[in-house]
């Protein structure tokens, strides 16, 4: 599904990623770990097409199509979805109508027919209930005046409504209490059940206890230093990034 080959990325003339290769197959869960500044979020943003980053070498392919030059909305139309670490505030942009606009834009790009308003509202209501979000939130401005946890739930709400094929969770668990993590994890499981492929970027083991990864990768200084299975996470909890990456192999 996602094939990243020898990816080199820079921003403002600083080289950040220095040859990342990663293959993610449909239905898999990959965890991406590493210290702050190792390039995890850069990688996530590059997959989604953030204009701040420039690909200097290598390629990102999605379903065998090179997406290096696609606009973010074109990537979204292919089914790529990134949850933001810090979702920006959009004053006056009402959640319910925005989300319908986005849903219709995706449908149009995919040559599908738009969702009927009544069906849309029903789905929105059910999904908000599922995530424990009060229904009146739908009339509020996007990400404005919400707590950190609520914002993360809104990111999952949007994913559930937009039904991506690949979802990249960029530190979705940061700053969440255990109850909120459970709700977010339930949302991710639901996405998985819908057939979504998952990349989880995290510092902590906690969320991986709820969503078991098939593969774990540790990023260090712009390259994947170590890849392995779930046992890598357990080792990491006991020691440190440094030890794991130096003692591996």
């Amino acid at each position, binding site marked *: 599904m996602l094939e990243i080959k020898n990816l080199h990325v820079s921003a403002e003339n600083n080289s950040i990623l220095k040859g990342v290769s990663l293959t993610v197959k449909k239905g898999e869960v990959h965890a991406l770990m590493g210290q702050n500044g190792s390039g995890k979020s850069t990688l996530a943003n590059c997959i*989604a*097409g*953030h*204009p*701040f980053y420039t690909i200097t070498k290598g390629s990102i392919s999605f379903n065998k199509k090179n997406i290096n*030059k696609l*606009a*973010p*909305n074109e*990537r*979204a*139309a292919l089914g790529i*979805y*990134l949850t*933001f670490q810090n*979702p*920006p505030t*959009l*004053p*006056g*942009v*009402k959640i319910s109508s*925005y989300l319908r*606009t*986005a*849903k219709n*834009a*995706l449908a149009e*790009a995919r040559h599908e027919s738009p969702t009927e308003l009544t069906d849309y509202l029903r789905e929105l209501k059910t999904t908000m209930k599922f995530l424990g979000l009060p229904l009146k939130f739908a009339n509020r*401005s996007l990400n404005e005046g919400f707590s950190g946890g609520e914002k993360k739930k809104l990111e999952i709400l*949007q994913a559930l409504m*937009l039904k991506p094929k690949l979802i990249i969770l960029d530190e979705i668990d940061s700053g969440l209490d255990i109850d909120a993590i459970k709700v977010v994890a339930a949302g991710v499981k639901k996405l998985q059940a819908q057939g979504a492929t998952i990349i989880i970027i995290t510092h902590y083991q906690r969320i991986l206890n709820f969503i078991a990864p098939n593969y774990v990768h540790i990023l260090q200084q712009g390259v994947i230093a170590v890849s392995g299975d779930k046992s890598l996470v357990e080792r990491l909890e006991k020691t440190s990034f440094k030890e794991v990456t130096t003692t591996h192999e």
Partner: protein
Amino acid sequence: MSKSPNNILIKDYQFGFSNAEKYFYREKKGLNERVVKSISSHKGEDEYMRDIRLKALQIFFEKKMPSWGGDLSKINFDNITYYIKPQAKKGRTWNEVPKEIKTTFDKLGIPDSEKRFLAGVGAQYESESVYHQLKQEWKDKGIIFEDTDTALKKYPELFKKYFGTVVPMNDNKFAALNTAVWSGGTFLYVPKGVKMNIPLQNYFRINAKNMGQFERTLIIAEEDSSVQYIEGCTAPTYSTDSLHAAVVEIIAHKNSRVRYTTIQNWSSNVYNLVTKRAVAHEGATVEWIDGNLGSKLTMKYPAVYMIGRNAHADILSLAVASKGQHQDAGAKAVHLAPNTTSVITAKSIAANGGKSSYRGLLRIVKRALNSKSKVVCDALILDDQSSSDTWPTMEIKNNQSSVEHEATVSKIGEEQLFYLQSRGLNENEASSLIINGFLSPIVKQLPMEYAVELNRLIELQMEGSIG
């Protein structure tokens, strides 16, 4: 990849069409006593108004150009036509309006709106009203809705009682100019206790090149009455400049309520220098909703003087400045009596090298005890070529009043755009959503038909930019 949205808001100005300049009478360009006397005599005025005009002309000549606000140095007063009478007689039905002029107003959707949701409509073409009509049911309630020239003749006492009392001729250079050469505008009188729940509208159209339009509007709401009035304006796009210098005076008597809505969409060759002021008596509420989308330079600060206890002012100012435009807009709230309250909400957008300025005055005098005011001004800048500034003045002379002031300037962030794009919206859709969201507190206050129109105008501006 996505860039900053500096190609949006390039105006695809849809009202830039023009008709041939065929008129019943056209004054020679330039301004002097002869021109003023000629205007007065064309209107068949008596000495009362002719003398006011001549006196105002002297004041206009004596007063210096304002040195603040926008760049007024390029206005050539000698190259402007101060009076054009488009037809011999005003129409009482649209069929009596010359075909070419009627077609213009058809294109602007005026007769259609009149049928659908307005209590009365006026239409001014160049200097004169070509149509002015109030529905019978409102006439029966004693409402007077006339063009201002007609009102001077039909209701001289009422006219003289109020004319120039809110905006005196020596108030500022352009108020003096208006007083000297005023023509057309709306005279609206609402008797005691009459509540109009549907709006009245007057539409102002400039057609000729280098035209000056100087309408004069006077609204009087008697005790316990209420009224909503809407003003719309457009002009053809020419390479030379036109001037619009109107004066609007509102008198809101005890416990009355007046709402005045403007959707100014002049073409970008029009200087729009307008004095709008209201006095609010005890318990009265005056609301200005002032939308400025067009013009080359707008300098306009709708004001409310709260002279009676418990009077309230609510001013919403919206300005969109695109290429070659400067919107110097704002509001004035003057608290002259105790327990008066005011809310000023100003929103401006600058794009494509446009400049938006908020200029506001909040004054609470010593005896206006227990007054309250809230001022919020937000600016949104769309690209690096555009700019925005804020000039708020506050004079609070007693310490038993409360004042809140918030001002924000934000840029459409790359992060906001990327966020929405990553959810499936293209760049223009994303910008449009951000702009509409920013403006929503104001758009929500507009009558539905105008909110739709405003959103459509903004979307139209977005559309022209794709590719």
